[in-house]
């Protein structure tokens, strides 16, 4: 879709993406029924495969027994030295490990059921049936989760019963629920990650290689959980669970977006196509059409038309802006500057400090511009890997800082509005819209990974959104930032002097 076309659409791409994300996340009764048909077959098939059943069986019975033996020996050992606390902290972690090991099979089953089926050519007949993409995804997801989850719960039960009988230890309800939740959500994360990997590969071998992108973070996560449990910070685990739930939801949303017939059948070769990627990017960025390149006025007209599609990301970023400022004020009230620093916020001190900056004023616009562009690029880059989360946080950071400083002004008995009017407003009226536009375009780019436009493949949607971001960055944001940098270097200090009577 050309940018010019979408300007007249009653629903923008971003709104469509949000609506699609919401509607496709809510399965209906029929979806569950169809998914269960798929799950039942897959689970039955898995239970006929000895390569899956024997390890699960061993991990359900033999491994908990081993862990139980380890726990018993450990308790006996540490009791000799009066260090019961070590055993008390380690036993819960062993419970988590007992649950995790069978759960890790969900990754193997998921890779097998998604990409294995594609490799064996049994996926296409399924795609020819009335199953929707969502139903198929749900069915396979449940099939990958059910056997390992059952094994996991069974293993934990065996371990806990044996532990109760051998060393009379039982977990608190909080710890028990947390362990169950962590184990279950980790399974969801691994399977959802496996779907994403599977849809981008054509063989189980390639998928297994890529699976390290799941295994390594999971190993790190287990280590982090070990530290949290050993530290005894069980209430902090709720935050971890919250983070894991969010990660699982994002990965599942991304999986449902990627797991579609087009992506599954359209990708026959795992090949990087740099030429095609550049062509897609450049065509979108330059606005090239069959008639040739647009003139600068037409190019800018197309670029401004993209803004119309950014309504939702802009609203999100405005909310982040307000949230950042509010968070800054709250943190400012919680962590008050020492009296010596507060004295620096007086008008006469500000004027004196500004005078010291005069010798730097020649280089200041370039420093400010470089800093702003650097922040935008960092935001764009980190957002790609975090589905936009870090880009929002980075966007909130300077605003939060302003909120913090404004709060310090108020706490020091100064008028915060004088500070805001003098030190921020003159350049912020240009700088904030520039940052907002670039940040919104970056966010739209980042969320295409989770929810690609319905009429495009994932790679197309990603490249087009990236081109839109670069277009708005270079065409709108950077020119505005150049102006705001000069305003900040030359006008803002004067306004500040005026406000504080310098």
């Amino acid at each position, binding site marked *: 879709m050309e940018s010019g076309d979408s300007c007249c659409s009653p629903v923008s791409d971003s709104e469509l993406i949000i609506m699609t994300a919401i509607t496709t996340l809510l399965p209906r009764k029929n979806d569950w029924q169809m998914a269960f*048909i798929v799950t039942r*077959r897959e689970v039955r098939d898995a239970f006929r495969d000895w390569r899956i059943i024997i390890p699960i069986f061993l991990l359900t019975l033999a491994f908990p027994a081993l862990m139980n033996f380890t726990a018993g020996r450990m308790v006996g050992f540490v009791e000799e030295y009066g260090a019961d606390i070590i055993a008390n902290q380690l036993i819960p972690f062993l419970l988590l490990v007992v649950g995790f090991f069978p759960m890790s099979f969900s990754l193997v089953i998921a890779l097998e059921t998604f990409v294995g089926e594609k490799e064996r050519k049994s996926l*296409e*007949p399924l795609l*020819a049936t009335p199953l929707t993409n969502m139903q198929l995804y749900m069915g396979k997801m449940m099939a990958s989760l059910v056997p390992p989850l059952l094994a996991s719960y069974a293993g934990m039960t065996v371990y806990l019963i044996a532990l109760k009988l051998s060393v009379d230890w039982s977990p608190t309800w909080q710890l028990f629920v947390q362990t169950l939740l962590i184990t279950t959500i980790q399974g969801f994360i691994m399977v959802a990650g496996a779907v994403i990997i599977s849809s981008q590969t054509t063989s189980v071998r390639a998928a297994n290689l890529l699976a390290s992108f799941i295994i390594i973070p999971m190993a790190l996560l287990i280590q982090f959980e070990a530290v949290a449990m050993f530290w005894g910070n069980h209430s902090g685990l709720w935050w971890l669970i919250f983070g894991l739930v969010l990660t699982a939801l994002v990965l599942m949303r991304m999986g449902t977006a990627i797991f579609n017939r*087009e992506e599954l059948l359209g990708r026959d070769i795992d090949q990087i196509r740099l*030429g095609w990627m550049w062509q897609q990017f450049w065509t979108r960025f330059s606005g090239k059409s069959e008639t040739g390149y647009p003139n600068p006025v037409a190019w800018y007209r197309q670029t401004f038309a993209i803004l119309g599609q950014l309504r939702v990301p802009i609203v999100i970023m405005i909310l982040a802006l307000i949230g950042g400022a509010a968070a800054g004020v709250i943190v400012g009230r919680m962590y008050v500057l020492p009296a010596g620093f507060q004295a620096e916020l007086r008008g006469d001190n500000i004027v004196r400090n500004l005078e010291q900056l005069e010798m730097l004023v020649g280089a200041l616009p370039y420093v400010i511009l470089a800093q702003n562009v650097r922040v935008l690029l960092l935001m764009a880059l980190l957002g790609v890997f975090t589905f936009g989360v870090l880009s929002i946080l980075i966007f909130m950071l300077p605003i939060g800082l302003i909120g913090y400083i404004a709060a310090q002004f108020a706490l020091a008995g100064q008028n915060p509005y004088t500070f805001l009017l003098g030190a921020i407003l003159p350049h912020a009226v240009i700088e904030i819209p520039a940052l907002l536009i670039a940040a919104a375009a970056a966010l739209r780019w980042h969320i295409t990974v989770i929810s690609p436009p319905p009429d495009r493949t994932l790679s197309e949607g990603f490249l087009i959104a990236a081109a839109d971001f670069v277009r708005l960055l270079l065409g709108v944001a950077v020119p505005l930032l150049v102006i705001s940098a000069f305003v900040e270097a030359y006008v803002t200090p004067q306004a500040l002097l005026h406000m504080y009577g310098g």
Partner: protein
Amino acid sequence: MIEAVGLGKTFDEFTAVYDLSLSVQAGELLALLGPNGAGKTTTVRMLGAILRPTTGHARVNGHDVVLEADKIRHSMGMLTEQPGLYLRMSGLEYLVFYGRLYGLSDDLIKKRAINLFERFNMPGAYTRRLGEYSKGMRQKVGLIRAMLHDPAVLLLDEPTSAMDPHSAKLVRDAIRELRDDKRTIILCTHNLPEAESLSDRIAIIKRGTIVAEGTAIELKQQLLGQPQIELQVDRYLNGEVEDLSDLVTVEWVGENTIRYRTPDPTVTNPQLVRHLTGLGLGVVSLYEVTQSLEDVYLHVVEETKDV
């Protein structure tokens, strides 16, 4: 029943199908012929509402392939190029699974499955695991899967590939029955005699678009010209051939053989025989040179090779 106009499909930078238009009436069987990579499978996938066309539009059984994809998949049966079975399941388990996806009751599925197994000469095999089946049997199970929900439209991609002659004949007979049963069928095949014997019409696809279409007879006439006749006489020909140019178009002359084309052999051949007899030549043999679908196919494929 199947109507496609200007259909195209591009995978990133690769165009698999472009500007493809075809029409298949209810009860008609269209054979889609073409070399490997010509776009047959992509076309079938678009018509089967598995892939979305990049350009153009198509309707199958009255439903739009993009807007009513679910309805199309409900009313259509597809045999994919490779049957893609679950080898740990028995034949019956496999078909019960697929039948449920089409909303059929287990009793109905079993009844139909057992009938179809018998029809395809595999009675009793449905209790065995699919992993134990021969290649041909697996292909037949794939066909049974496509027919299980009694679809009005069938898209068959290489239905007899990897089958022994006997199995292939059974499948062909079944396809013929389906066609006689007024089902609409598109048959992708490399087997030219099969296409000629089963199809009402043939479309030859090359490099993503249809380059020739018609009945086998029409295609032969369109692409290979008038019927070609070979005539043998009882002695050497010495210049008599020049006198024949008023009657037929002579293409080749041997020592005692001539090959010619004529728009209407029923009229021309008797005249020619009378003429040669009058010249004192005895006609030893006279027959129409067989122009096979293979000739048509090769002609089309070669002709468009460098386009």
